C-alpha cells in the first residue's frame, strides 16, 4: 500500500468524532517494510509486512479515561473502537490527576522520508546481501539482516492537535564467521542509499579474521576502548534507568538526589534529540507534542529530565515531547539518545591505551542494580587485547558487571565519529567510541 499521508489524519478525525466524549485523542500509525535475513552466507528468511494501528483515548465525566486499539481503518471499525473506549472510560474510576490533552502546535518539518527506501523491493535487499556475501574472504561466512521500512504517524485530538509525520529507515547488520573468530558491523540510516553496505561487510570480515584463535584472559578490571555499538548500549540503558520524570517522581530513577550534580566525566554530554539530522523518527511524540532537544547530562552534570504531558503539568513545565501512548505506567521515555562526540580519532583511542581491551559490542545486557546503574552482559564478535597502543590478537569473550556512571566517570577520551545503533528494540542511540580507564569484567566464557 502506498503512503497514506493526509488520509491518516482523516482516519484520526473520524475516530475522535465520538459523541459524548469530553476529550478524545486518536493515534494512527502505519508501518510497512521488508527484512531479508541471511545465515551461513545464504538467505534463509525473508519477510514483508504492513500494519495499521488506530489507538483511541476517550475521556468522559471530565476525568474517566478509556482506551481501545484496533488494527483496521474502516470507518465502521473505528467507530466501534470509539464506542469501546467510551464504554471502558465509563467503567473506570475517576482520575483526579487527569491533566487534559495538549493543544495545537507547530511542528518542525523533518525530511526523513525517502521514496526509494520505502519502495525497496526484495530483489534490492537480496542484491545488497549478495554483494556482501560474494566478496567475503575465503573461509569466512556471514549472517545478518537487511531491512527497509517506512513509518507514518498521525495524532489528532479534540483540542486541535493535528500532527502528521513520516520517516523511512534502512539498516544492514553483518556477523562474519571465520571459524574460531567472529566479527560484526551494523549501519542504520533514514535512506538506504546512504548505507555503505560493502564497507560494513569488509569491516565485519576483517574483524572476524583478526578475532581467530582467541586467548584466555582472566576476569578483572581493565582499561577499555568501547566501539560505538557498545557505548550505545550503555547510553540506552541510562535512558531506561530513569531520565523520565515519572520514574524520577516515583523514586525509581538513578537520578534521584543527583539532579544538578556531577555524575560522570566532564567529557560526557548526553542529549535526546529526535530533530537531529542524523537520526530516524518523526518530530512529535505519541500525544502530538513537538519533540525538543533535551540535554540530559551536560559535561558530566545531571542536567534535566524528559516530560510527557501529564508530568509536565504536574511539574509546571513545558512537555518535552517524550510521551508514550497515554496513560502510561512508564511515563516519558527518551527514544533518540545521543552522546556528543569528542575530538579523538578512533584509531588514536586505541593508540593511547597502554594495555587493555578493545570491545566491538555487547550481548544480552541486563540490569543488576538500578540506583547504582550497574548492568551485566557479555562481549561478542571481536574482543581484542591492546598493548602499547597496538592490537595484539583476540581474547575470549568476557562478562562485564559494571556501573554505567562509574564507567562514564572514568572516560579518558571520546571518539570523534559516531554511529547510529540499536539495542534489543529499546530505540536507537547515536554514540562515539570511548576510551575508559577502568571497566570490570567479572567472569569469562569458553570462546
Amino acid at each position, binding site marked *: 500500500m502506498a503512503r497514506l499521508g493526509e488520509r491518516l489524519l482523516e482516519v484520526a478525525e473520524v475516530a475522535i468524532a465520538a459523541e459524548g466524549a469530553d476529550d478524545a485523542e486518536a493515534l494512527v500509525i502505519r508501518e510497512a517494510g521488508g527484512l531479508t535475513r541471511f*545465515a551461513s552466507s545464504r538467505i534463509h528468511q525473508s519477510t514483508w509486512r504492513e500494519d495499521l494501528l488506530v489507538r483511541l483515548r476517550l475521556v468522559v465525566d471530565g476525568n474517566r479515561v478509556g482506551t481501545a*486499539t484496533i*488494527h483496521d481503518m474502516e470507518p465502521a471499525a473505528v467507530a466501534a473502537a470509539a464506542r469501546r473506549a467510551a464504554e471502558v472510560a465509563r467503567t473506570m474510576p475517576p482520575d483526579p490527576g487527569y491533566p487534559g490533552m495538549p493543544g495545537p502546535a507547530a511542528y518542525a518539518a523533518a525530511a526523513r522520508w525517502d521514496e526509494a527506501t520505502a519502495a525497496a523491493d526484495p530483489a534490492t535487499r537480496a542484491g545488497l546481501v549478495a554483494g556482501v556475501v560474494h566478496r567475503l574472504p575465503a573461509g569466512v561466512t556471514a549472517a545478518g539482516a537487511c*531491512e527497509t521500512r517506512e513509518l507514518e504517524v498521525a495524532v489528532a485530538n479534540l483540542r486541535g492537535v493535528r500532527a502528521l509525520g513520516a520517516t523511512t529507515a534502512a539498516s544492514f547488520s553483518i556477523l562474519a564467521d571465520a571459524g574460531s573468530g567472529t566479527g560484526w558491523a551494523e549501519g542504520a540510516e533514514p535512506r538506504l542509499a546512504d548505507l555503505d553496505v560493502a564497507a560494513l561487510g569488509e569491516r565485519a570480515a576483517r574483524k572476524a579474521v583478526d578475532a581467530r584463535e582467541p586467548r*584466555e584472559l582472566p576476569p578483572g578490571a581493565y582499561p577499555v576502548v568501547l566501539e560505538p555499538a557498545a557505548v550505545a548500549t550503555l547510553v540506552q540503558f541510562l535512558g531506561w534507568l530513569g531520565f523520565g520524570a515519572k520514574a524520577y517522581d516515583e523514586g*525509581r530513577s538513578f537520578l534521584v538526589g543527583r539532579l544538578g550534580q556531577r555524575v560522570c566525566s566532564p567529557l560526557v554530554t548526553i542529549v535526546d534529540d529526535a530533530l537531529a539530522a542524523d537520526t530516524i523518527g518523526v518530530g512529535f511524540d505519541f500525544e502530538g507534542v513537538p519533540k525538543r532537544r533535551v540535554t540530559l547530562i551536560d559535561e558530566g552534570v545531571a542536567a534535566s529530565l524528559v516530560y510527557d504531558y501529564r508530568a509536565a503539568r504536574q511539574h509546571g513545565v513545558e512537555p518535552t515531547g517524550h510521551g508514550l501512548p497515554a496513560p502510561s505506567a512508564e511515563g516519558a521515555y527518551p527514544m533518540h539518545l545521543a552522546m556528543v562526540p569528542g575530538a579523538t580519532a578512533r584509531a588514536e583511542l586505541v593508540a593511547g591505551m597502554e594495555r*587493555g581491551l578493545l570491545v566491538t559490542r555487547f550481548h544480552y545486557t541486563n540490569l543488576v542494580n538500578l540506583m547504582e546503574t550497574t548492568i551485566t552482559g557479555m562481549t561478542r564478535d571481536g574482543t581484542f587485547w591492546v598493548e602499547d597502543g597496538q592490537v595484539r590478537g583476540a581474547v575470549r569473550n568476557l562478562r562485564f*558487571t559494571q556501573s554505567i556512571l562509574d564507567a562514564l566517570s572514568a572516560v579518558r577520551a571520546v571518539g570523534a565519529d559516531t554511529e547510529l545503533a540499536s539495542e534489543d528494540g529499546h530505540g536507537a542511540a547515536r554514540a562515539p567510541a570511548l576510551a575508559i580507564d577502568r571497566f570490570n569484567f*567479572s567472569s569469562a566464557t569458553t570462546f
Partner: protein
Amino acid sequence: MRAMEPEELAELALRAAVAAGAGYADARWVRQETESLTVTDDRVDDLEAEDSSGLGVRVLVDGCWGFAASALLDPERVRDLGRRAVEIARAAASVPGEPVRLAPLEPAVASWSTPLGRDPFVVPLAERVELLLAACEAQRAVAGLTHARATVDLWRRRTLFWSSEGARLDQTVTQTGAGIEAVAVGDGDLQQRSWPNSFRGQFLAGGWEVVEAADLVGNAQRVAREAVDLLHAPELPERVTTVILDGQQLSLQVHESVGHPLELDRIFGTEASYAGTSFVRPEDRGRLRYGSEAMSVTSDATTPGGLGTFGFDDEGVPAQRAPLVAGGMLEGFLTSRETATALGTTSGGAMRADGWGSPPLIRMTNVNLEPGEGTLDDLVADTADGLLLSVNRSWSIDDRRVNFQFGVEAAWEIRGGRLGRLFKNATYDGRTTNFWGSMDAVCGPQAWVVWGIPNCGKGQPYQNGRVSHGAAPGRFRDVHVGVRGSGGSGGLKASPPVDGGSGGAHG
C-alpha cells in the same frame, strides 16, 4: 459488499500463492485480543485493550522461503500477499543454499481451544480494577513501603492455519496473568518483591481462575514486608556455596540454559547474528552429559496450563511430549519441519509465531524440569550451609549459552537446615553444563509448578514468545554468588592475556 470470512481469506491467499508458483504455501489468519490493566498505589496507571487481526502467507519456491503479511484484508490485498510472498522467495534464490525440504506431515483438519474455567474477558472491568486496588491497598498498609503495583493481563489468540497440503486448523488459545510488585525506596537504594513471580506475575493458559489462584490480596502484606525488609538487609557477600533456587528462578534457569541452547535453528546457525547460536552440536544427542542424573527435561506442548500448550504448532504439527535431557544425558532438540529433515526425523512441533505479522520460528513450548522428591522444607532441612534464592530480577547469558549470570529479588541464608538472615542484591553465575552437573536434588510433584515466561525475545523482526517451564525448587553445589570486582578498591589489574589455564572459570 459483504466482508469475507477469515476462512475465505485464508483460502484466497493460499490459492494466489500457489497460482504464483509456490511449491508449498500456508496461510495463517490470526486475531489477537489483549487486555492489560495496571494499578499503581491508588489509581489505574495504564489500561490497554487491543484487537489485532491480520493474515500472513508463507511459501516455499524452489527451496527458498518467502513471507508476507498484512493487517489490511480486502480481497485484492489478500491476493497480493500470496503473490508478494512468492516474489520474496524468488529474490531469496539469488543467494541460495541447500534447498529447504520439509519433513513429512499428515495434514490435519481439526479445532482446538484452551480449557477455561471462567472466561477472563467477560469478567467486568470494574471487578478487575476493584481486585487490583484491594491488592495495592493491602500492600500499602505495611509501613515503609514506597509503591504498590498490581496487574492483570489477558490474551486470546484465534489462529486459522490453512496449508497447500490440506491442513485446515482452527485454534483458540486463552492465557491469563496476574501479579503484584511491592517497591521500597530509601537511602539511595530500591528493592522490589513480587508475587507470584516478577515481571507482571504468573501467567498460565486458562481463565479468571488463574487470577483467583494467585491470591494477590492474601499475599500482599507478606510481599510488601519482604520488600521493606530487603531495603534494610545486608548485601550478599561474594563466595562459593550451595544454593537452592526456588521454582520461579529455576524456571528461568531452564529457559536460558536448556531451552534456548536446544533450539535447532540456533544450533544450525540461522539465528547467529542476533540471538546467537549454541554450544550444543547436532551430533551431541545421546553423547553429551548436560547435567547430573537428577536432571531430566521434557518438551511438552500438552502440559495443562502452559503458555506453550496448544493443539498444533504454527506449521500444523500436533502437540507432542518428548525428552530433551534424560538422567543428565542429551536426548533431543526443539525442531521444525525444516530442521527435522536434517536430522532424518519428523518435526517435534515447536514452530510458533507471535502473531499474523511474523513467520514461525523454533520456540520453546513447555520445557519442563521433571520433579524429584520431597518438599522445599525437606530440601532446606537437608542443607547444612547455603542460600535459598528467590524470584528472578536479572538475567544474562552469552551468545552460545555457556556463561550466565542471574540476579534474584531475595536470598535467605541456610544454616543447619534452617532459613536465616535475608540478603539483598544477590547474584549467581556459572557455566551451563558445570552448573547442571552440580544439581543434586529437585523437589517433588507437590512443589512442581508450571511457571509462565511471557517475554521471550527472538528473531528479526523481533518476536515476543510466551513459553512455560514446569519446575520445583532444586539444589546446586559449589555455586559462585556475588560479583567479582564489584566491591573494594581492588586496584587496576591490567594483566596481559594468558594462554590456557583456568582463567578464573568457575561453576
